[in-house]
């Protein structure tokens, strides 16, 4: 009998995360993240795909304690296992009181101040240092009053052992070269407004990597850039992944970007994960998959998708508004594959994430073990 391979635990594990926001106008909770479970293995890139309102960005922002609006994160565990496991949301329960009715959360009392303090304590050294983030709008992340080089050097000094100014500058230049920015020495002294969209995105990536993180979270890194610039940033991220062996969580609504860069994909809709699995399988239109993903792929504007009637098979209805969440499956109002066998179950209870193969899970009654 062979020895079981020592499989290291996932670098990041999110369990039952719930992040709610409160709408004063509608006097109801916006259930942005409504019970999400995710795992990120070491060395892999997890792509989180979803439309607006799916909760994909908020999930990762919650994991690193960047959600400040009320009530924010209310339950969940986020375990970051670098050398030792560490719950980033520890001490949460003592600050939150929840009252249920009929299985729904009706009342939340949260001490936001003390929660933030606890979160900041938990995340010290982790946020920015071991887990780094890059965002959609690079100009928003860069300080317009400092030069690019200074900001990268600051990141080096804060998060690595190099404290001297000269060492930090050398390291900053090294990272600028790594992100293939042209004329790194020139760009070191540029201010962010002197850089184009693509270049400032590279600068932000350099700043994030200069901290030498274990994991990089990229939240819509290519959205808003020109098509040809997007392609170059994607090439860059691909290159960095291979060379540095980075673990990455990539959040995007663009299936093309996700498919190029991710090893595994999680599809989110209405605050929940609907399916996970290896990229090729999730995006394979002929294989088994969640009706939402299949319908989404079939409706993307490509000539191949046009049916005989001259139409694209569009998903009818509107994207789920996470305030009025229907009972049963969240996608059932727009689902085309409901049949008589599953009809009742779809309407009354929400399916679990059924594991149809190791590492491949689908939240749909059509794939339940019975």
């Amino acid at each position, binding site marked *: 009998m062979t020895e079981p391979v020592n499989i290291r635990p996932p670098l990041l594990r999110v369990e039952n995360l719930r992040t709610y926001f409160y709408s004063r106008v509608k006097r109801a909770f916006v259930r942005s993240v409504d019970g999400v479970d995710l795992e990120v293995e070491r060395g892999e890139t997890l792509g989180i795909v979803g439309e*607006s309102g799916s909760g994909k960005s908020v999930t990762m922002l919650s994991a690193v304690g960047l959600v400040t609006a009320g009530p924010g994160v209310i339950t969940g565990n986020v375990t970051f296992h670098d050398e030792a496991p560490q719950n980033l949301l520890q001490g949460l329960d003592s600050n939150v009181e929840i009252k249920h009715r009929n299985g729904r959360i009706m009342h939340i009392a949260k001490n936001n101040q003390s929660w933030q303090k606890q979160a900041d304590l938990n995340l010290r050294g982790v946020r920015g240092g071991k887990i780094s983030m890059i965002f959609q709008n690079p100009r928003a992340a860069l300080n317009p009053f400092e030069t690019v080089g200074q900001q990268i050097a600051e990141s080096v000094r804060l998060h690595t052992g190099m404290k001297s100014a000269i060492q930090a500058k050398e390291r900053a230049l090294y990272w600028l070269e790594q992100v293939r920015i042209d004329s790194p020495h020139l760009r070191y002294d540029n201010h962010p407004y002197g850089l184009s969209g693509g270049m400032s995105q590279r600068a932000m990536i350099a700043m994030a990597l200069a901290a030498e993180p274990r994991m990089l979270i990229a939240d819509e890194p290519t959205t808003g850039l020109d098509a040809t610039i997007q392609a170059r940033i994607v090439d860059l991220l691909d290159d960095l992944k291979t060379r540095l062996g980075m673990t990455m969580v990539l959040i995007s609504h663009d299936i093309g970007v996700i498919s190029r860069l991710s090893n595994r994909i999680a599809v989110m809709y209405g605050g929940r994960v609907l399916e996970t699995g290896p990229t090729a399988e999730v995006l394979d239109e002929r294989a088994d998959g969640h009706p939402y993903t299949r319908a989404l792929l079939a409706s993307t504007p490509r000539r191949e998708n046009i049916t005989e009637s001259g139409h694209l098979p569009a998903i009818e209805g509107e994207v789920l508004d996470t305030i009025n969440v229907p009972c049963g499956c969240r996608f059932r109002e727009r689902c085309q594959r409901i049949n008589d066998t599953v009809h009742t179950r779809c309407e009354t209870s929400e399916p679990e994430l059924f594991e149809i193969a190791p590492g491949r899970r689908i939240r749909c009654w059509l794939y339940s073990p019975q």
Partner: protein
Amino acid sequence: MSQPILEVIELRKHFYQRRGLLDALTREADDRIIPAVDGVSFSLHENETLGLVGESGCGKTTTGKAILKLMSMNGGKILYQNTDITAYTPAQFRPLRRDIQMIFQDLDAALNPKICIADTLREAIRIREPDADATAVQHQIYELLDLVNLKKNKLSNFPSELSGGEKRRVGIARVLAVRPKMIVADEPTSALDVSIQAQVINLLRDLQAQFGLSFLFISHDLQLVELMSHRVAVMYLGQIVEMGPAKEIAHSPRHPYTSVLWSSIVEKRSMEVPSGAGPNAWGVFDFERPSGGCRFAPRCPIYAQRGRPIECTDPNSPPTLKSINQSHMVACHFPL
């Protein structure tokens, strides 16, 4: 195809960037001219969709707005149904606005946030029929809602209460209310969720079939444009670099930029070659010091492949649109 409904000839639009004080003192005090649209020519026929593709800054939106006279032009001619409307005053042009309409890129563009949907549509209907009585107008409002698949209970809502897809549909309904003959659609699906985009695309195709509309379909997405258009024109930095039937442009492009664009969009893979020659290497075109000749040369993989031929950067022989076959034109010294 018969006579073109719209002809644009050598359209030019410049933006001026005023020199700062220091520059005026130290260098020549010319205001910087940015040729956003630099000699664009095309024609649009009835019942046809011409796609205009390019990235930001290529001048496609500016071209669209110039056709609608929302921007003044610096040169060229526009012919609508064979009449030269270039020099029309705003008052002369206003009756023609019913025929030429625009769907704006911004979802909120068509909608005054303080006016409810019913009143917005009513206002548009009254442009065409100022004397219609209230019942006739109400009837037409319902017709428009049916055309764009919008529920009647949205009539009393304000724009802030609608979703993205619904706002886009109201914008389309408003444009249809004046019964145009051609529509300039500027990125009609960009701001929408993927699952909603298909709905809007189907709607636009249906409307074209039903009303015989002509579309100038502006987008950065080559795949989408291939789907929607009969013919496609590819723009780069203010000029058309390739124009031809949609299928040929998409699947057998002849201009290096088109092929780079296609691979960027479909495979998210960059085919460009960094020439390492300073800031221009990464495609930041400097209008101040134009390298002369072909504008795409610094980024062109063919330019690098062929060992940087001198024709490409010779300012005396810039590439011009030449026909390859009956319907396909390319502006390149070394077409693929």
